Protein backbone atom coordinates (compact mmCIF):
# COMPACT_ATOMS: atom_id res chain seq x y z
CA UNK A 1 0.00 0.00 0.00
CA UNK A 2 1.44 3.40 -0.88
CA UNK A 3 1.70 6.09 1.73
CA UNK A 4 -1.00 8.10 -0.02
CA UNK A 5 -3.60 5.32 -0.03
CA UNK A 6 -2.76 4.46 3.55
CA UNK A 7 -3.46 8.01 4.69
CA UNK A 8 -6.64 8.22 2.70
CA UNK A 9 -7.81 4.90 4.06
CA UNK A 10 -6.98 6.02 7.59
CA UNK A 11 -9.11 9.11 7.17
CA UNK A 12 -12.00 7.10 5.78
CA UNK A 13 -11.76 4.53 8.51
CA UNK A 14 -11.65 7.09 11.31
CA UNK A 15 -15.40 7.64 11.29
CA UNK A 16 -16.41 4.15 12.37
CA UNK A 17 -13.53 3.25 14.64
CA UNK A 18 -15.17 1.12 17.33
CA UNK A 19 -17.85 -0.72 15.32
CA UNK A 20 -18.20 -4.52 15.04
CA UNK A 21 -18.26 -7.68 17.10
CA UNK A 22 -21.67 -8.59 18.47
CA UNK A 23 -22.33 -7.49 22.08
CA UNK A 24 -22.70 -11.14 23.13
CA UNK A 25 -19.16 -11.90 22.05
CA UNK A 26 -17.73 -8.75 23.58
CA UNK A 27 -19.15 -9.60 26.97
CA UNK A 28 -16.59 -12.26 27.88
CA UNK A 29 -13.87 -11.51 25.39
CA UNK A 30 -12.23 -8.39 26.67
CA UNK A 31 -8.55 -9.27 26.39
CA UNK A 32 -8.31 -8.14 22.80
CA UNK A 33 -9.36 -8.71 19.24
CA UNK A 34 -7.90 -11.27 16.93
CA UNK A 35 -8.94 -10.92 13.30
CA UNK A 36 -8.16 -13.75 10.91
CA UNK A 37 -8.23 -13.21 7.15
CA UNK A 38 -8.78 -16.35 5.09
CA UNK A 39 -10.81 -19.38 6.19
CA UNK A 40 -8.62 -22.09 4.66
CA UNK A 41 -5.98 -24.39 6.14
CA UNK A 42 -4.10 -21.67 8.01
CA UNK A 43 -6.98 -19.33 8.86
CA UNK A 44 -9.60 -21.84 10.00
CA UNK A 45 -7.00 -23.66 12.12
CA UNK A 46 -5.91 -20.37 13.69
CA UNK A 47 -9.44 -19.19 14.47
CA UNK A 48 -10.43 -22.52 16.03
CA UNK A 49 -7.24 -22.81 18.10
CA UNK A 50 -7.58 -19.25 19.37
CA UNK A 51 -11.24 -19.71 20.26
CA UNK A 52 -10.51 -22.88 22.26
CA UNK A 53 -7.40 -21.76 24.13
CA UNK A 54 -7.92 -18.01 24.56
CA UNK A 55 -11.46 -17.59 25.88
CA UNK A 56 -10.87 -13.93 26.69
CA UNK A 57 -9.94 -12.93 23.16
CA UNK A 58 -12.57 -12.21 20.52
CA UNK A 59 -12.00 -14.03 17.24
CA UNK A 60 -13.32 -12.82 13.90
CA UNK A 61 -12.76 -14.78 10.69
CA UNK A 62 -13.11 -13.14 7.27
CA UNK A 63 -13.62 -15.44 4.29
CA UNK A 64 -15.49 -14.68 1.05
CA UNK A 65 -16.79 -18.21 0.38
CA UNK A 66 -19.56 -19.61 2.56
CA UNK A 67 -18.02 -23.09 2.52
CA UNK A 68 -14.48 -24.32 2.02
CA UNK A 69 -13.48 -26.77 -0.70
CA UNK A 70 -10.08 -28.31 0.08
CA UNK A 71 -7.35 -28.71 -2.51
CA UNK A 72 -6.15 -31.82 -0.62
CA UNK A 73 -8.11 -34.83 -1.86
CA UNK A 74 -9.23 -32.81 -4.91
CA UNK A 75 -7.01 -35.04 -7.02
CA UNK A 76 -9.04 -38.02 -5.80
CA UNK A 77 -12.05 -36.53 -7.59
CA UNK A 78 -10.06 -36.85 -10.81
CA UNK A 79 -9.33 -40.47 -9.89
CA UNK A 80 -13.04 -41.12 -9.39
CA UNK A 81 -12.49 -41.97 -5.70
CA UNK A 82 -14.10 -38.89 -4.14
CA UNK A 83 -16.83 -36.37 -4.97
CA UNK A 84 -16.93 -32.61 -4.45
CA UNK A 85 -19.25 -33.12 -1.46
CA UNK A 86 -16.56 -35.23 0.25
CA UNK A 87 -14.14 -32.28 0.26
CA UNK A 88 -16.58 -29.45 1.07
CA UNK A 89 -16.66 -28.06 4.61
CA UNK A 90 -19.02 -25.72 6.44
CA UNK A 91 -18.13 -22.86 8.80
CA UNK A 92 -21.02 -23.73 11.15
CA UNK A 93 -18.71 -25.57 13.55
CA UNK A 94 -16.53 -22.49 14.00
CA UNK A 95 -19.61 -20.31 14.47
CA UNK A 96 -20.94 -22.71 17.11
CA UNK A 97 -17.67 -22.30 19.00
CA UNK A 98 -18.09 -18.54 19.05
CA UNK A 99 -15.92 -17.48 16.14
CA UNK A 100 -17.53 -14.53 14.39
CA UNK A 101 -17.46 -15.59 10.73
CA UNK A 102 -17.92 -12.80 8.19
CA UNK A 103 -18.33 -13.83 4.56
CA UNK A 104 -16.65 -10.93 2.80
CA UNK A 105 -13.31 -10.17 1.18
CA UNK A 106 -10.64 -8.06 2.87
CA UNK A 107 -9.61 -5.33 0.44
CA UNK A 108 -7.19 -3.25 2.52
CA UNK A 109 -5.16 -3.50 5.70
CA UNK A 110 -3.79 -0.47 7.49
CA UNK A 111 -0.99 -1.72 9.75
CA UNK A 112 -0.65 1.65 11.47
CA UNK A 113 -4.24 2.08 12.61
CA UNK A 114 -4.67 -1.72 12.97
CA UNK A 115 -7.70 -1.77 10.74
CA UNK A 116 -9.00 -4.02 7.97
CA UNK A 117 -11.47 -2.89 5.35
CA UNK A 118 -13.85 -5.35 3.71
CA UNK A 119 -15.34 -5.19 0.23
CA UNK A 120 -18.84 -4.79 1.69
CA UNK A 121 -17.74 -1.61 3.48
CA UNK A 122 -17.28 -3.03 6.99
CA UNK A 123 -14.15 -2.01 8.88
CA UNK A 124 -12.59 -4.22 11.54
CA UNK A 125 -10.21 -3.06 14.25
CA UNK A 126 -7.71 -5.63 15.43
CA UNK A 127 -5.07 -5.92 18.09
CA UNK A 128 -3.47 -8.82 16.24
CA UNK A 129 -4.11 -9.96 12.70
CA UNK A 130 -3.55 -13.44 11.30
CA UNK A 131 -3.34 -13.39 7.53
CA UNK A 132 -3.66 -16.70 5.69
CA UNK A 133 -5.05 -15.78 2.26
CA UNK A 134 -3.16 -18.46 0.31
CA UNK A 135 -1.89 -17.94 -3.20
CA UNK A 136 -2.74 -16.03 -6.33
CA UNK A 137 -1.94 -17.29 -9.81
CA UNK A 138 0.46 -15.19 -11.86
CA UNK A 139 -1.75 -14.64 -14.89
CA UNK A 140 0.34 -13.99 -17.96
CA UNK A 141 3.53 -15.54 -16.53
CA UNK A 142 2.88 -18.25 -19.09
CA UNK A 143 2.04 -16.27 -22.22
CA UNK A 144 -1.62 -16.69 -23.14
CA UNK A 145 -2.63 -18.07 -19.75
CA UNK A 146 -5.17 -15.68 -18.23
CA UNK A 147 -8.50 -16.11 -16.44
CA UNK A 148 -10.34 -16.72 -19.71
CA UNK A 149 -7.81 -19.39 -20.71
CA UNK A 150 -8.47 -21.16 -17.40
CA UNK A 151 -11.97 -21.85 -18.70
CA UNK A 152 -10.41 -24.06 -21.39
CA UNK A 153 -7.19 -25.19 -19.72
CA UNK A 154 -8.20 -25.41 -16.05
CA UNK A 155 -5.58 -24.94 -13.32
CA UNK A 156 -7.67 -26.55 -10.56
CA UNK A 157 -5.05 -25.27 -8.08
CA UNK A 158 -7.37 -23.25 -5.82
CA UNK A 159 -10.54 -24.53 -4.16
CA UNK A 160 -12.82 -21.53 -4.71
CA UNK A 161 -16.30 -22.63 -5.78
CA UNK A 162 -15.11 -26.04 -6.96
CA UNK A 163 -15.73 -25.24 -10.63
CA UNK A 164 -12.09 -25.69 -11.67
CA UNK A 165 -11.66 -29.23 -10.35
CA UNK A 166 -15.12 -30.13 -11.69
CA UNK A 167 -14.22 -28.82 -15.15
CA UNK A 168 -10.97 -30.78 -15.22
CA UNK A 169 -12.80 -33.96 -14.17
CA UNK A 170 -15.42 -33.45 -16.92
CA UNK A 171 -12.75 -32.85 -19.55
CA UNK A 172 -10.90 -36.02 -18.58
CA UNK A 173 -14.14 -38.01 -18.71
CA UNK A 174 -14.79 -36.60 -22.21
CA UNK A 175 -11.24 -37.30 -23.45
CA UNK A 176 -11.35 -38.96 -26.91
CA UNK A 177 -10.17 -42.55 -27.00
CA UNK A 178 -6.36 -42.57 -27.00
CA UNK A 179 -6.31 -38.79 -26.43
CA UNK A 180 -3.57 -36.73 -24.74
CA UNK A 181 -3.78 -35.03 -21.35
CA UNK A 182 -1.06 -32.38 -20.97
CA UNK A 183 0.07 -30.85 -17.70
CA UNK A 184 2.26 -27.77 -17.31
CA UNK A 185 4.01 -27.80 -13.92
CA UNK A 186 5.80 -24.77 -12.43
CA UNK A 187 9.23 -24.23 -10.90
CA UNK A 188 9.65 -23.91 -7.11
CA UNK A 189 8.27 -22.47 -4.92
CA UNK A 190 4.62 -23.33 -5.44
CA UNK A 191 1.63 -24.68 -3.50
CA UNK A 192 1.96 -28.38 -2.66
CA UNK A 193 5.24 -29.69 -4.13
CA UNK A 194 3.97 -33.30 -4.59
CA UNK A 195 0.49 -32.17 -5.77
CA UNK A 196 1.07 -32.22 -9.55
CA UNK A 197 2.48 -35.75 -9.39
CA UNK A 198 -0.39 -37.06 -7.27
CA UNK A 199 -2.64 -35.47 -9.88
CA UNK A 200 -0.84 -37.26 -12.73
CA UNK A 201 -1.27 -40.54 -10.82
CA UNK A 202 -4.97 -40.01 -10.16
CA UNK A 203 -5.68 -39.08 -13.79
CA UNK A 204 -3.81 -42.23 -14.85
CA UNK A 205 -5.79 -44.29 -12.33
CA UNK A 206 -9.03 -43.14 -13.96
CA UNK A 207 -7.80 -43.48 -17.56
CA UNK A 208 -6.40 -46.96 -16.97
CA UNK A 209 -9.98 -48.15 -16.56
CA UNK A 210 -11.89 -45.73 -18.81
CA UNK A 211 -9.48 -44.97 -21.65
CA UNK A 212 -6.43 -47.25 -21.45
CA UNK A 213 -4.76 -46.08 -24.68
CA UNK A 214 -4.76 -42.42 -23.54
CA UNK A 215 -1.44 -40.65 -22.82
CA UNK A 216 -0.41 -38.21 -20.11
CA UNK A 217 2.35 -35.75 -21.01
CA UNK A 218 3.65 -33.89 -17.96
CA UNK A 219 5.80 -30.88 -18.86
CA UNK A 220 7.85 -29.62 -15.95
CA UNK A 221 9.78 -26.39 -15.36
CA UNK A 222 12.03 -28.40 -12.98
CA UNK A 223 14.55 -31.20 -13.33
CA UNK A 224 13.31 -33.12 -10.32
CA UNK A 225 10.39 -33.21 -7.91
CA UNK A 226 9.08 -34.24 -4.51
CA UNK A 227 8.96 -38.01 -3.81
CA UNK A 228 10.18 -38.51 -7.40
CA UNK A 229 11.48 -42.06 -6.97
CA UNK A 230 8.30 -43.22 -5.26
CA UNK A 231 6.08 -41.65 -7.91
CA UNK A 232 8.10 -43.00 -10.82
CA UNK A 233 8.13 -46.50 -9.28
CA UNK A 234 4.35 -46.31 -8.93
CA UNK A 235 3.84 -45.05 -12.48
CA UNK A 236 5.91 -47.91 -13.90
CA UNK A 237 4.22 -50.49 -11.68
CA UNK A 238 0.65 -49.34 -12.14
CA UNK A 239 0.36 -47.50 -15.44
CA UNK A 240 2.97 -48.96 -17.82
CA UNK A 241 3.94 -46.34 -20.40
CA UNK A 242 0.83 -44.16 -20.09
CA UNK A 243 2.76 -41.33 -18.35
CA UNK A 244 5.64 -39.39 -19.86
CA UNK A 245 7.34 -36.82 -17.62
CA UNK A 246 9.38 -34.19 -19.48
CA UNK A 247 11.82 -32.28 -17.25
CA UNK A 248 13.11 -28.77 -17.95
CA UNK A 249 16.46 -30.06 -19.24
CA UNK A 250 14.53 -31.92 -21.95
CA UNK A 251 12.63 -28.81 -22.99
CA UNK A 252 9.80 -29.42 -20.51
CA UNK A 253 9.27 -25.78 -19.53
CA UNK A 254 6.03 -24.47 -21.07
CA UNK A 255 6.25 -20.73 -21.78
CA UNK A 256 3.15 -20.14 -23.93
CA UNK A 257 -0.27 -21.71 -24.31
CA UNK A 258 -2.82 -21.33 -27.09
CA UNK A 259 -6.10 -22.63 -25.67
CA UNK A 260 -8.09 -22.03 -28.90
CA UNK A 261 -5.79 -24.42 -30.77
CA UNK A 262 -5.11 -26.58 -27.71
CA UNK A 263 -1.37 -26.01 -27.85
CA UNK A 264 1.39 -25.97 -25.23
CA UNK A 265 4.57 -24.28 -26.45
CA UNK A 266 7.91 -25.03 -24.81
CA UNK A 267 10.90 -22.84 -24.00
CA UNK A 268 12.65 -23.93 -27.21
CA UNK A 269 9.56 -23.56 -29.36
CA UNK A 270 8.25 -27.12 -29.55
CA UNK A 271 4.46 -27.20 -30.01
CA UNK A 272 2.52 -29.94 -28.27
CA UNK A 273 -1.14 -30.56 -29.14
CA UNK A 274 -3.17 -31.69 -26.13
CA UNK A 275 -6.81 -32.75 -25.90
CA UNK A 276 -7.02 -31.73 -22.25
CA UNK A 277 -4.63 -29.18 -20.77
CA UNK A 278 -4.07 -28.67 -17.04
CA UNK A 279 -1.93 -25.58 -16.57
CA UNK A 280 -0.53 -25.05 -13.07
CA UNK A 281 0.96 -21.59 -13.43
CA UNK A 282 3.61 -19.84 -11.29
CA UNK A 283 2.20 -18.35 -8.10
CA UNK A 284 2.71 -15.67 -5.47
CA UNK A 285 1.00 -14.56 -2.26
CA UNK A 286 -2.70 -13.65 -2.57
CA UNK A 287 -3.44 -10.03 -3.55
CA UNK A 288 -4.33 -8.81 -0.06
CA UNK A 289 -0.83 -9.67 1.20
CA UNK A 290 0.94 -8.00 -1.73
CA UNK A 291 -1.36 -4.96 -1.92
CA UNK A 292 -0.84 -4.28 1.79
CA UNK A 293 2.89 -3.93 1.23
CA UNK A 294 3.77 -7.07 3.21
CA UNK A 295 5.47 -9.04 0.41
CA UNK A 296 8.98 -8.54 -0.89
CA UNK A 297 10.05 -8.58 -4.55
CA UNK A 298 9.62 -12.38 -4.64
CA UNK A 299 5.88 -11.88 -4.22
CA UNK A 300 5.84 -13.82 -0.90
CA UNK A 301 5.79 -12.40 2.64
CA UNK A 302 9.01 -12.51 4.73
CA UNK A 303 8.26 -13.51 8.33
CA UNK A 304 9.94 -13.88 11.69
CA UNK A 305 10.75 -17.59 12.10
CA UNK A 306 9.59 -17.69 15.75
CA UNK A 307 6.25 -15.92 15.43
CA UNK A 308 5.40 -15.58 11.73
CA UNK A 309 5.09 -11.83 12.31
CA UNK A 310 5.48 -10.09 8.95
CA UNK A 311 8.86 -8.35 8.70
CA UNK A 312 7.08 -5.24 7.43
CA UNK A 313 4.30 -5.18 10.09
CA UNK A 314 4.90 -7.03 13.37
CA UNK A 315 1.26 -7.15 14.49
CA UNK A 316 0.31 -9.05 11.32
CA UNK A 317 1.23 -12.73 11.38
CA UNK A 318 1.31 -14.23 7.90
CA UNK A 319 0.99 -18.00 7.77
CA UNK A 320 0.36 -20.68 5.17
CA UNK A 321 1.27 -20.54 1.52
CA UNK A 322 1.54 -16.72 1.42
CA UNK A 323 4.62 -16.69 3.68
CA UNK A 324 8.21 -16.84 2.50
CA UNK A 325 9.45 -19.60 4.76
CA UNK A 326 11.59 -21.99 2.75
CA UNK A 327 12.38 -24.84 3.40
CA UNK A 328 8.91 -25.16 4.95
CA UNK A 329 6.71 -26.68 2.23
CA UNK A 330 3.57 -24.84 1.12
CA UNK A 331 1.20 -27.49 2.44
CA UNK A 332 -2.10 -27.61 4.30
CA UNK A 333 -0.55 -29.45 7.25
CA UNK A 334 2.21 -26.82 7.49
CA UNK A 335 -0.39 -24.01 7.34
CA UNK A 336 -2.22 -25.73 10.22
CA UNK A 337 0.98 -26.17 12.22
CA UNK A 338 2.28 -22.63 11.75
CA UNK A 339 -1.21 -21.24 12.53
CA UNK A 340 -1.01 -22.41 16.13
CA UNK A 341 2.49 -21.09 16.78
CA UNK A 342 1.51 -17.77 15.22
CA UNK A 343 -1.62 -17.52 17.38
CA UNK A 344 0.31 -18.43 20.53
CA UNK A 345 3.00 -15.85 19.68
CA UNK A 346 0.54 -13.12 18.77
CA UNK A 347 -1.72 -13.63 21.78
CA UNK A 348 1.13 -14.11 24.23
CA UNK A 349 2.20 -10.59 23.48
CA UNK A 350 -1.35 -9.32 23.72
CA UNK A 351 -1.91 -11.01 27.08
CA UNK A 352 1.52 -10.14 28.45
CA UNK A 353 2.86 -13.70 28.68
CA UNK A 354 5.87 -15.48 27.16
CA UNK A 355 5.75 -16.49 23.48
CA UNK A 356 6.29 -20.18 22.49
CA UNK A 357 9.81 -21.02 23.63
CA UNK A 358 10.99 -23.54 21.05
CA UNK A 359 8.49 -23.71 18.22
CA UNK A 360 8.40 -26.85 16.08
CA UNK A 361 6.83 -26.74 12.63
CA UNK A 362 5.44 -30.00 11.36
CA UNK A 363 4.48 -31.42 8.01
CA UNK A 364 3.38 -34.76 6.64
CA UNK A 365 2.07 -34.95 3.08
CA UNK A 366 0.48 -38.15 1.89
CA UNK A 367 0.15 -38.76 -1.85
CA UNK A 368 -2.17 -41.29 -3.44
CA UNK A 369 -0.61 -42.93 -6.49
CA UNK A 370 -3.36 -45.52 -7.07
CA UNK A 371 -6.01 -47.58 -5.33
CA UNK A 372 -4.69 -48.72 -1.91
CA UNK A 373 -1.38 -47.16 -2.84
CA UNK A 374 -0.08 -44.11 -0.99
CA UNK A 375 3.19 -42.86 0.49
CA UNK A 376 4.30 -39.88 2.52
CA UNK A 377 6.96 -37.33 3.29
CA UNK A 378 7.57 -36.07 6.83
CA UNK A 379 9.37 -32.83 7.68
CA UNK A 380 10.01 -31.35 11.13
CA UNK A 381 11.42 -27.83 11.17
CA UNK A 382 12.60 -25.26 13.70
CA UNK A 383 13.63 -21.61 13.67
CA UNK A 384 17.26 -21.19 12.71
CA UNK A 385 19.71 -18.36 12.25
CA UNK A 386 17.61 -15.92 10.21
CA UNK A 387 15.23 -18.56 8.83
CA UNK A 388 14.10 -22.14 9.23
CA UNK A 389 15.96 -25.45 9.25
CA UNK A 390 14.83 -29.05 8.98
CA UNK A 391 15.67 -31.10 12.08
CA UNK A 392 18.69 -33.23 11.13
CA UNK A 393 18.29 -37.01 10.72
CA UNK A 394 14.51 -36.90 10.95
CA UNK A 395 11.56 -37.10 8.60
CA UNK A 396 11.99 -38.04 4.97
CA UNK A 397 9.97 -40.17 2.58
CA UNK A 398 8.44 -43.63 2.76
CA UNK A 399 10.93 -46.33 1.71
CA UNK A 400 11.14 -47.44 -1.93
CA UNK A 401 11.02 -51.08 -2.94
CA UNK A 402 9.39 -53.55 -5.32
CA UNK A 403 5.61 -53.56 -5.14
CA UNK A 404 5.51 -57.19 -4.09
CA UNK A 405 7.35 -56.25 -0.89
CA UNK A 406 5.79 -52.84 -0.36
CA UNK A 407 2.10 -53.50 -1.16
CA UNK A 408 1.08 -53.82 2.47
CA UNK A 409 2.81 -50.58 3.52
CA UNK A 410 1.36 -48.67 0.58
CA UNK A 411 -2.13 -49.92 1.44
CA UNK A 412 -1.67 -48.99 5.10
CA UNK A 413 -0.49 -45.51 4.15
CA UNK A 414 -3.58 -45.06 1.95
CA UNK A 415 -5.72 -45.79 5.04
CA UNK A 416 -3.66 -43.50 7.24
CA UNK A 417 -3.94 -40.79 4.58
CA UNK A 418 -7.73 -40.95 4.88
CA UNK A 419 -7.36 -40.64 8.66
CA UNK A 420 -5.13 -37.60 8.10
CA UNK A 421 -7.76 -35.92 5.93
CA UNK A 422 -10.49 -36.56 8.50
CA UNK A 423 -8.28 -35.42 11.40
CA UNK A 424 -6.93 -32.26 9.84
CA UNK A 425 -10.33 -31.05 8.63
CA UNK A 426 -11.73 -31.68 12.14
CA UNK A 427 -8.87 -29.61 13.49
CA UNK A 428 -9.98 -26.78 11.18
CA UNK A 429 -13.76 -26.88 11.25
CA UNK A 430 -15.24 -29.00 14.07
Amino acid sequence: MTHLTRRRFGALAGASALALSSPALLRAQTAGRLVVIGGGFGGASAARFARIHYPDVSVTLVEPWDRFITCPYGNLILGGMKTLADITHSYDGLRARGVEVIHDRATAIDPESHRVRLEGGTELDYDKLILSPGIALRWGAIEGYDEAAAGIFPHAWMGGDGSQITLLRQQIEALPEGGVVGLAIPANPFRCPPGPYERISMIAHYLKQANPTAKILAFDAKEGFSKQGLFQDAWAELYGDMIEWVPSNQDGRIVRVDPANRLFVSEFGTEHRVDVGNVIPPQYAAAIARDSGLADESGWVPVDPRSFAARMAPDIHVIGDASLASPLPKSGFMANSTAKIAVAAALAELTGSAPPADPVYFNTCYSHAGEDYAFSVVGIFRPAEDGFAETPDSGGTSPRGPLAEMAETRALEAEYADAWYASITQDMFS
Partner: protein
Amino acid sequence: MNARFHRAAMTAVLLAAGAAQAEPSSGLLLAQPCAGCHGQDGAGQGATPAIAGLDREAFLEAWAAFRADARPATVMNRITKGYTEEEAALLADHFASLQ
Protein backbone atom coordinates in the same frame (compact mmCIF):
# COMPACT_ATOMS: atom_id res chain seq x y z
CA MET B 1 -6.05 4.55 22.39
CA ASN B 2 -2.44 4.20 21.32
CA ALA B 3 -1.09 0.71 20.82
CA ARG B 4 1.20 0.61 23.84
CA PHE B 5 -1.41 1.94 26.20
CA HIS B 6 -3.90 -0.52 24.74
CA ARG B 7 -1.61 -3.46 25.42
CA ALA B 8 -0.95 -2.34 28.97
CA ALA B 9 -4.68 -1.96 29.53
CA MET B 10 -5.31 -5.45 28.20
CA THR B 11 -2.70 -6.92 30.50
CA ALA B 12 -4.31 -5.13 33.41
CA VAL B 13 -7.72 -6.54 32.49
CA LEU B 14 -6.22 -10.02 32.43
CA LEU B 15 -4.47 -9.65 35.76
CA ALA B 16 -7.67 -8.32 37.26
CA ALA B 17 -9.49 -11.38 35.96
CA GLY B 18 -7.08 -13.54 37.95
CA ALA B 19 -5.22 -14.60 34.77
CA ALA B 20 -8.15 -16.81 33.81
CA GLN B 21 -6.56 -17.21 30.40
CA ALA B 22 -5.60 -20.87 29.86
CA GLU B 23 -2.47 -20.31 27.83
CA PRO B 24 -1.29 -23.35 25.91
CA SER B 25 1.63 -25.07 27.65
CA SER B 26 4.70 -26.23 25.71
CA GLY B 27 3.31 -29.78 25.88
CA LEU B 28 0.02 -28.73 24.37
CA LEU B 29 1.77 -26.78 21.60
CA LEU B 30 4.09 -29.69 20.83
CA ALA B 31 1.09 -32.04 20.70
CA GLN B 32 -0.80 -29.97 18.12
CA PRO B 33 0.44 -31.76 14.98
CA CYS B 34 -0.43 -35.15 16.51
CA ALA B 35 -4.09 -34.11 16.13
CA GLY B 36 -3.47 -33.93 12.39
CA CYS B 37 -3.56 -37.76 12.26
CA HIS B 38 -4.60 -39.13 15.66
CA GLY B 39 -7.82 -37.09 15.88
CA GLN B 40 -8.75 -34.41 18.39
CA ASP B 41 -6.70 -34.69 21.60
CA GLY B 42 -5.33 -38.00 20.32
CA ALA B 43 -8.75 -39.68 20.46
CA GLY B 44 -7.93 -41.87 17.44
CA GLN B 45 -9.18 -41.53 13.88
CA GLY B 46 -9.97 -44.34 11.46
CA ALA B 47 -7.00 -46.68 11.24
CA THR B 48 -4.75 -44.36 13.27
CA PRO B 49 -4.60 -45.49 16.92
CA ALA B 50 -5.84 -43.48 19.90
CA ILE B 51 -3.02 -42.09 22.04
CA ALA B 52 -5.09 -40.14 24.58
CA GLY B 53 -4.62 -41.50 28.06
CA LEU B 54 -1.68 -43.68 27.10
CA ASP B 55 0.30 -44.42 30.23
CA ARG B 56 3.48 -42.33 30.41
CA GLU B 57 5.80 -45.34 30.47
CA ALA B 58 3.96 -47.10 27.64
CA PHE B 59 4.13 -43.93 25.58
CA LEU B 60 7.86 -43.50 26.11
CA GLU B 61 8.48 -47.18 25.38
CA ALA B 62 6.56 -46.99 22.10
CA TRP B 63 8.31 -43.72 21.25
CA ALA B 64 11.79 -45.14 21.87
CA ALA B 65 11.00 -48.26 19.85
CA PHE B 66 9.83 -46.19 16.86
CA ARG B 67 12.88 -43.98 17.18
CA ALA B 68 15.22 -46.99 17.18
CA ASP B 69 13.41 -48.60 14.21
CA ALA B 70 12.67 -51.49 16.57
CA ARG B 71 8.90 -51.41 16.03
CA PRO B 72 7.16 -51.67 12.64
CA ALA B 73 5.89 -48.27 11.52
CA THR B 74 4.83 -46.38 8.43
CA VAL B 75 5.49 -42.85 9.76
CA MET B 76 6.18 -42.80 13.48
CA ASN B 77 9.78 -43.95 12.93
CA ARG B 78 10.37 -40.81 10.85
CA ILE B 79 8.39 -38.53 13.19
CA THR B 80 10.00 -39.57 16.51
CA LYS B 81 13.48 -38.81 15.15
CA GLY B 82 12.51 -35.13 14.90
CA TYR B 83 12.14 -34.61 18.66
CA THR B 84 14.47 -34.40 21.65
CA GLU B 85 14.11 -36.59 24.73
CA GLU B 86 12.79 -33.60 26.70
CA GLU B 87 10.16 -33.00 24.06
CA ALA B 88 9.17 -36.69 24.07
CA ALA B 89 8.71 -36.46 27.85
CA LEU B 90 6.48 -33.38 27.48
CA LEU B 91 4.41 -35.24 24.88
CA ALA B 92 4.17 -38.30 27.13
CA ASP B 93 2.96 -36.16 30.04
CA HIS B 94 0.49 -34.37 27.81
CA PHE B 95 -1.16 -37.49 26.41
CA ALA B 96 -1.07 -39.29 29.77
CA SER B 97 -3.01 -36.37 31.24
CA LEU B 98 -5.90 -36.80 28.79
CA GLN B 99 -8.55 -39.32 29.79
